[in-house]
């Protein structure tokens, strides 16, 4: 049990943090999804490392071997990979639709357009009132 011996887990932590950071810090919707995938991948690594027993082989019965790795985490992670693919695919298709609807995949540009939508709804529903000026100010910022 030393730092080098646990290097799988160090990689897991590193990847997890990198992925998480990308999700939080980047404005581009595709980059966010890339970050999310990295984040999920780190968990796959985590499960796979967990099943490995040093000095053991794949869980196929063989007379030469006494120790076998635990196959269950690997099987579980197959499910998680499928889920991850579904999430990424859905996310990307949403980004395509967002690009079609907004003409942009930058979060800040989308936000400006959303505020604009809000403003239009507001104008249509309430007419120009005191709140209108405030919203308009927000938009021009």
């Amino acid at each position: 049990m030393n730092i080098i011996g646990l290097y799988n887990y160090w990689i897991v932590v590193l990847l997890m943090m990198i992925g998480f950071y990308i999700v939080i810090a980047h404005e581009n919707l595709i980059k966010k999804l890339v970050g999310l995938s990295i984040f999920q991948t780190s968990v796959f690594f985590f499960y796979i490392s967990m099943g490995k027993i040093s000095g053991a082989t794949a869980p196929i019965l063989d007379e030469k071997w006494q120790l076998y790795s635990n196959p269950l985490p690997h099987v579980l992670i197959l499910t998680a990979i499928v889920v991850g693919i579904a999430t990424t695919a859905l996310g990307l298709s949403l980004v395509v639709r967002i690009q079609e609807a907004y003409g942009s995949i930058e979060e800040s540009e989308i936000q400006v357009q959303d505020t604009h939508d809000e403003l239009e709804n507001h104008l249509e529903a309430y007419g120009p009132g005191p709140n209108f000026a405030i919203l308009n100010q927000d938009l021009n910022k």
Partner: protein
Amino acid sequence: MIYHYPVLQVIIPLLGAPLCLFIRVPRLVGFFAVLVSSLSFLISCGLRQQVHLYGTIVYELGGWAAPWGIEYRIDQLNSYLLLLVSGISTIVLIAAQTSIKKELPENRHIFFYTSYLLCLTGLLGILATGDAFNVFVFLEISALSSYTMIALGTDRRALTASYQYLVMGTIGATFIIIGVGLMYMMTGTLNMYDLAQRLPEVYKSKTVLCAFGFFIVGVCLKLALFPLHLWLPNAYAFAPSIATAFLAATSTKVAVYLLIRYIFSVFGIDFVTTSLPLHDIFLVLGLIGIFATSISAIYQRNIKRIFAYSSVAQIGYMILGLAIGTELGLTATLLHLFNHALMKGTLFLAIGAVVYRIGSSQLNHFAGLGKKMPLTMAAIVAGGLSLIGVPLTVGFVSKWYLIVALLDKGWWPVAVLVLISSLLAVIYVWRVIEWIYFSQPRIILDDVREAPMSQLIPIWLLVLANLYFGVDTRLTVGVSKLAAQSLFGVTP
């Protein structure tokens, strides 16, 4: 046949979903979805009956015994929630027939019903299963299908709302599997019952603590606890009305169930109270959440957003009940879980009926509707009163239990705060009522008529349920008490 009830409940909507794609006739698909959902409902009635008579049901999937195979475990708590989720789903689907036809283009109806049934599968699966990893799978089934349903909304902001929910939801779910993985590392089992047996041996390890932390944060993202609720208002506001009604009434409740299940049946309340100051965290976040989101609700101009923010506030009450950490507190949480589903189901269905008629959910477009759509508006008033907690409605029952639990614990300042926060609910509900009944119409309402029967019936069914369970509390209070007792009993 009866033996297979626990799994049939989940399998029926799971098989129903792809069948929707084969039916292809939009009109038939709607009826088919109602059929599937009501079958699930009937089965959950049967399950509830069995649990009532014989106690906990254990079902082994494919005949594989528990620690190796996946096990479904139906007890007091989840039989009660299965009934709620499948019941609300059926009622909402009845209203969906007309509402979806109006709100979505025809080529999307089939996809809507498919993802609706998948979402139902996921929610019922989370409730029924006794396997920690299976929970994650069902969680993702329900989450992915709800992202789809939200993205089907006609406003383009539905897309960004769905994207935001996807990112937050995936982070939450990933946190949950990290937690499950860490627990598996320490115990070598994924069965919840087994986990509860083996975890006490390793309580002292940092790994279990870490697992607990990851799990709690993940679930709190899913249930929209106050600082993690940012995905919720937009998602509810721009989704098709039917999707909003279904998700608001069920999906966050199922996440609360998951939290309760893990705290009590997996980690054990002793571990939870000694390892982390969870009760304090819940108390503070619950209270801040109630106030911050109730105040936000007051300033919203879209009626769906008003009630979306109010949903987050109601989650705050449930978490507050958990924070008390006594049997009474848990009873209050479970009661509010059930009652809030009834209130929000009513409100969002009634709003859906208005959107059906006038095509808008802007608050001031509701002006003058009191005369045009009296029955629908009366339902909104009833739902609103229930939200405030006026006597004779379900809202009163759960607030009453919450306050009794708080006083019992000696936290009277918190009880006072809960009462004050109810006044905030009075303000936002009153704003809605004022627009509905006491304002001049802003848009031309000449050809607006009362909502069609197919929507009025489900709405009023829920209103009557709101009133009925507000007076006759034998079922709700009885089951909540039993469930709370058994949860506290599992871990001495």
